[in-house]
């Protein structure tokens, strides 16, 4: 399994965490924000079964599971003015009322994780105002407190929050793996460009594997 983990194998299954990024209604369900922008959610929807499978593997093996959700406080005090402006000009601004409640606002229906891959009791959900799960959150503190050394990062979108979390995880000393078949972007060319950048030179920030590689690596941990 040397090709799955970037550098070393976790000491035990509990040292590895599956991190599921932003599988929210606003990003990957009909009636969510991306759908209301008139963009195609078929790419982000298409990975739901694979993400569910990765969750099953992790839960069965005793890996820690973290979920993230991108969104802002109802008073929008954590929303940068340029982020609000860009999304408004794009068609529907963060904080504005839409078909699934206020866009990317905590507590609204669109902010919730889609039911197919919802968090189970006991799993940690990190609510984040930025793209990176490490920006303005206690994610790093929580991982360190739990003794996590390895991150498997999946979810949406690959070109934005997934690669941001993967690369920031590397920078903070975590061994990071992305499962290519468990992540997607709204636009396929952006997904492909991101994967090529992450795979270059054998993976400068971590490794890129897939569901089958994850299953085998987890079995080896228990072997």
């Amino acid at each position: 399994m040397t090709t799955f983990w970037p550098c070393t194998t976790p000491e035990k299954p509990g040292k590895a965490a599956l991190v599921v990024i932003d599988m929210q209604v606003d990003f990957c369900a009909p009636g969510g924000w991306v759908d209301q922008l008139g963009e195609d959610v078929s790419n982000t929807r298409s990975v739901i079964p694979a993400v569910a499978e990765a969750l099953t593997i992790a839960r069965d093996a005793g890996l820690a599971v973290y979920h993230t959700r991108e969104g802002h406080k109802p008073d929008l005090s954590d929303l940068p003015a340029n982020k609000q402006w860009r999304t408004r000009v794009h068609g529907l601004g963060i904080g504005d009322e839409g078909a699934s409640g206020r866009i990317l606002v905590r507590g609204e229906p669109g902010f919730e994780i889609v039911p197919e891959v919802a968090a189970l009791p006991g799993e940690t959900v990190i609510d984040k105002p930025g793209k990176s799960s490490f920006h303005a959150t206690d994610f790093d503190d929580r991982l360190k407190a739990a003794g996590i050394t390895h991150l498997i990062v999946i979810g949406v979108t690959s070109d934005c929050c997934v690669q941001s979390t993967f690369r920031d995880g590397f920078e903070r000393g975590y061994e990071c793996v992305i499962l290519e078949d468990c992540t997607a972007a709204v636009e396929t060319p952006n997904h492909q460009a991101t994967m090529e950048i992450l795979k270059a030179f054998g993976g400068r920030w971590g490794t890129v594997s897939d569901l089958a590689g994850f299953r085998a690596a987890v079995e080896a941990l228990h072997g």
Partner: protein
Amino acid sequence: MVEPFAGIAANPYSWPFDGRWSADDSALLILGFQNGMVAALDAEPELAVAARLVSAAQAAGLPVIASRRGRAETLSPVAARRAATGADVGDPIFPPRTPEWQLAEALGLPSDAPVFDHAGDNAFYSTGLETWLRQRAIRNLVLAGLPTEGLLHATQRAANDMGFECIAISDACKGTTEERHTGQLRVTAFGNGLFGTVARSDQIIAALNAS
């Protein structure tokens, strides 16, 4: 009274988003233009553009900030893995105080330009850069860097999460391949500026020179 500069017809929108930028609230960020990196990427043309940006920014009274990446003294296992792959990794990280680690002299940096040292790609991580900018009420960042998908993107991405209004200068950046350069900047501008905006240097230089 500081005169505002003209807006930049950037991709995907006229930068900055609210039209407000001047020598009082903006800075030029020059990332990783070190001798070894310029050589590894054959980035002499991009270095020349970065030098023109430095010169124009200085003349217009815009703060010029440089970042320099170097190997940390204690490497994490993952960083050690990367260091061990050495020259094959495309954008090697040089030990501090070696000639390869030094900032390129051709940049013509002002002698009092602040320099931020970092071990990874992101010039904000574990440096005082954000504090430096906030103390001076800087809100707009003009970025140039090597490589595009490395230091430039990681730093612009972090700045964007922090709320800075960013513009990457495409001809003052170079990737480890042309495809990675183009692909990364495409992602930057996606969705009306997911990570900010992109423009060529001539526009920024013209705006600075007109001040």
